[in-house]
C-alpha cells in the first residue's frame, strides 16, 4: 500500500511538473504545438509506469523499482524532453511498452513484437544513419571522439550538448548528486555479472556516436531508463550496506539531490526562457 501511494506520488509529481506553464515554457509556440506537448507529457507518464513495472518484474524489489521511476522522472534530460515535441521521448515510450509486451508473452509473439522496434526507429529517427546506409561515411576518429563525449562525466553530469533550444545546457543527463550512486550501481552490476544492460547503454552510445547529426544524440536518449535503474541500484546498495554512523552522509546526499532538483527547476523556469527568448530569431521550428 505504502509503495502504491509513493508511486502515485511520483506520477502526480511528474504530471504537475510537466504541465506547469507548459504553454509558456519553452516559449514561442502556437496552440497545435501545445497539444503535441501534452502528448509528450502523457508519453512520459506511460514511460514512468513502464520503468517501474519492468524493474519490479525483473529485480523483484519494489524499492529499486520506485527509486528507478523516481530518478527517471527527475532526470533533467527526461524533464526537458517530456515538455517539448520530442520524437525520442515518444520512441522511448513505445520501445519500453514493447519490452514490457515481449517479457509478458510467449516465444512467437515476442518475435512479432520485437519486429516493431525497427519500425519505431524508422518513424522516430527517419534521419538515422542506418536508414541512409548508402550515404553514410564512417570516420573512426569522429566516432571515438563522439563516444568519449557521450560517456564523459561532462555530458552525464554537467553539460547537455545534445539539443539546441529544447533545454537547459547547464545541466547534464543527471544531477551531480547522483554521481556516487551511479558509480556504485555500475560496480554492483559488474559484481553481479549483469552485463546486458551495460552493453545496451554502450550499444545506444555507439548508435549515437555514429550519427552524422552528432552532437544531437537522440538515440542515446533510449539509454536513460537504464541509467535511472543503475543509479537506483546504487542508492539501494548504499542504503543497505551503510552503517548507521554514516547515515549523516546519506542525509546530506538526499539534501543535495533535492537542492539540485530545485536548482534545475529554477534554471528551467526562470533562466531558460530568458536565454531562449534572445535567440528566437534562430529557431526555425516549433518544439
Amino acid at each position, binding site marked *: 500500500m505504502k509503495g502504491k501511494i509513493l508511486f502515485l506520488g511520483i506520477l502526480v509529481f511528474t504530471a504537475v511538473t510537466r504541465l506547469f506553464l507548459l504553454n509558456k515554457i519553452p516559449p514561442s509556440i502556437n496552440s497545435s504545438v501545445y497539444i503535441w506537448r501534452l502528448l509528450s507529457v502523457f508519453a512520459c507518464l506511460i514511460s514512468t509506469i513502464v520503468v517501474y513495472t519492468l524493474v519490479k518484474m525483473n529485480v523483484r524489489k519494489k524499492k529499486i523499482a520506485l527509486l528507478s521511476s523516481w530518478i527517471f522522472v527527475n532526470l533533467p534530460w527526461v524533464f526537458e524532453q517530456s515538455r517539448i515535441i520530442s520524437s525520442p521521448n515518444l520512441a522511448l515510450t513505445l520501445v519500453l511498452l514493447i519490452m514490457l509486451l515481449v517479457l509478458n508473452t510467449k516465444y512467437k509473439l515476442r518475435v512479432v513484437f520485437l519486429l516493431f522496434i525497427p519500425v519505431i526507429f524508422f518513424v522516430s529517427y527517419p534521419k538515422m544513419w542506418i536508414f541512409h546506409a548508402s550515404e553514410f561515411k564512417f570516420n573512426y576518429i569522429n566516432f571515438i571522439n563522439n563516444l568519449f563525449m557521450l560517456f564523459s*562525466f*561532462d555530458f552525464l553530469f554537467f553539460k547537455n550538448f545534445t539539443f539546441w533550444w529544447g533545454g537547459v545546457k547547464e545541466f547534464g543527463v543527471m544531477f551531480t548528486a547522483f554521481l556516487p550512486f551511479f558509480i556504485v550501481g555500475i560496480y554492483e552490476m559488474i559484481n553481479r555479472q549483469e552485463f546486458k544492460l551495460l552493453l545496451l547503454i554502450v550499444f545506444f552510445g555507439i548508435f549515437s556516436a555514429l550519427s552524422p547529426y552528432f552532437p544531437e544524440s537522440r538515440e542515446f536518449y533510449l539509454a536513460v531508463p537504464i541509467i535511472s535503474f543503475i543509479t537506483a541500484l546504487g542508492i539501494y546498495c548504499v542504503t543497505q550496506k551503510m552503517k548507521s554512523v554514516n547515515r549523516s552522509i546519506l542525509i546530506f546526499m538526499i539534501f543535495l539531490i533535492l537542492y539540485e532538483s530545485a536548482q534545475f527547476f529554477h534554471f528551467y523556469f526562470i533562466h531558460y526562457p530568458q536565454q531562449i527568448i534572445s535567440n528566437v530569431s534562430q529557431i526555425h521550428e516549433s518544439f
Partner: protein
Amino acid sequence: MNLSNKTYFLLILIVILAATIRLIWLDKYPSSLYSDEIDQGYNAYSLMLTGKDEHGVYMPVSLRSFGDWKPPLPSYFMIPFIRLIGLSEVSVRMPSALLGIITIILIFFLTMELFSDQEKRTKIALLSSFFLSISPWDILQSRAAMLVVTGLFFLVFGVYLFMKGLKNSKLLYLCELSFALSIYSYYGLRVVIPVILITLLFSFKKRLLGTLTHKDFLGLFILGCILLLPLLISFIKQPDVIFGRAKTVSIFYDQGINLRKWELITQDGINANPLITRLFHNNFYMYGRNILQRFLSHFDGRYLFMIGDTSQPFQIPNMGILNFTDLFFIPLGLLVIFKKNYASRWLIFCWIIAGILPSAFTFVTPSSNRTFNAIVIYSILVAVGTFYFARILSKRLLGIFVISLLYSLSFGYFLNQYFVELPINHADWWNYGWKQVVEMVKNKEDKYNNIIVPDVNGMPYIYFLFYEKYSPEEFQKRAIKTYIADRFGYEHVEGFGKYLFPNEFDWNFIKKNSLDKHALYIVPEDLAKSDTNYINAIYYPNGKIAFKIFAYE
C-alpha cells in the same frame, strides 16, 4: 624479498628499455628547451658560480624565477651535470631523465609492497615498471626538465620507505626526508603529500603503532620540523614561497564564475526574493560544482586517449597522455583491485584522488603536469588489468600476443608522434628558435648599440642568458627588473647589457618611428607577417618562419 634471477633479468631489460627511450637524443627531442627548463638551468648555473640565483638570493629555498617561485631542488640537481658537461640541453635535462628511470625501478619495489601474493605480485610489479617505461606521459615529462619528475621520484620513494618502515622504524626517518624533498621539488605535492600520508597512517595504523616507540614519534616530529623550517622561514619573509603562482591560476582568481553569478542574479530580476536568489546563486554551489567538473575532466576519454593536454608544452600531437590500449585495462585493473579486496586498494584510490585534486582548483584543466603523480596508479592499474586479462583467457598465449600487439601499435604511434611529428610540425610548442636567434646575434652584436626583442614566445631574456652563458654575477648587478607581476602573475626582465625586452611592442609603429639608428630587432613572425625587409630569418624545422631579424644601421 627473494627475487629470482629471471625477475632481475626482466627488470634490467625494462630499465635498459626505459633508459634508451629517456636518454637518447636528449638535446634534440624536445626540439628546444622550454622557458621553464632553461630558467631552471640558468639558475643552476648561477647557483654553481655564485651561490645565488638569478635574483641574487643566496641558496634559495624557492626560486623567484619569472615570479612563479619554482621549488629549487631540480635546479640544485642540475649543478653536478653542468659542472661535468657544461651548460647545455643535456646537462639541464639529465637529472629529470635519470630520476624518471630510477622511478621505474622504484615502482617495481613499491608494487611488490602493495600486493601480498608472492607469485602474482612479482609479475604485476614487473608489468607496472614496464607500462611506466612505455608511458607517453612519463616519457614526455622525463625527457624535459620538469619539476614534477623530481617530485614524483621522492613521492614514490617516500611511500616505498613507509611500507618498509612498517617493519623497520629507522626507515621512517628516511621516508620523512623523502616526502620533505618532494615538497621542495613540486608545489602540487604540498597538497598531495598530506593526503597520502593521512591515508597511509589510517591504512596501516595498527602496524605502525606496533613498530614505533615514543622516542621514534618524538624523533620523527623533530626531524619534520627541521626539514620544513627553511620553507617556513622563507614563507614568513615572502608568503608566495609556499604556493608560488597558485594564486593566479586558481579558479578563485579567475572572474568567470563571479561574472556568471552576477548574470544569473540579474536575470532573477529586482522583484526576486533575495533569499531565493542567494539560495540558488551562491559561491559555495557554483564553485563546488566547478571544482567537481574540473576534477572529473581528468577522466575524460578524449583527454586521456585522444587529444591529451592542450596546454603547451605538454601536448603530443593527435594523441592522449596514455597509450590508447590502456583504455581497456585501467577500468579492469580498478575493478580487480576492489573485487579482490587488496589491502592497498584505498591507498590506490586516495592517491589518484589526491593526485588530481590540486589541479581541480585551477582554471587550466585537465592538466597533465599538475596531476603527473597519478601516473604511478595508472601504471599499476594497467599492470593489474593486463595480468588478470591474460589469466582469464583460456588461451593465455594468444591473450599475451594480442596485448603485446596492441601495445606495440600504440607505442609505435607514440614514437612517431613524439620523435617525428612534434619536432617538425609543432616545434613552436617548445619555443623553438631562440637558440638559433642567440647564435646568430652573437656574431652581430658588436655592430649595434641595442638588441631589441619583444617579450613574447616564452621569456626571451633567459634564452640570451643561457646560450651566451652570460655571467650570473654580471646579470645580478645589471639586470633591469621592475618586479611588477602581469595579470598571470609573471614578472618580466626589461633588459640587461645591450638587450631590451619591451612588453608593449607594435612593430608597425616602431619601424616607422625607430629612434635608435643602430639597433637590431628580433621580431616573431606573427608580429611582422607582411614585412619583407628583414636581413635574416630563423626557420622552424617545417620551413615556416619563426623570427625575422631587422637591422637599423
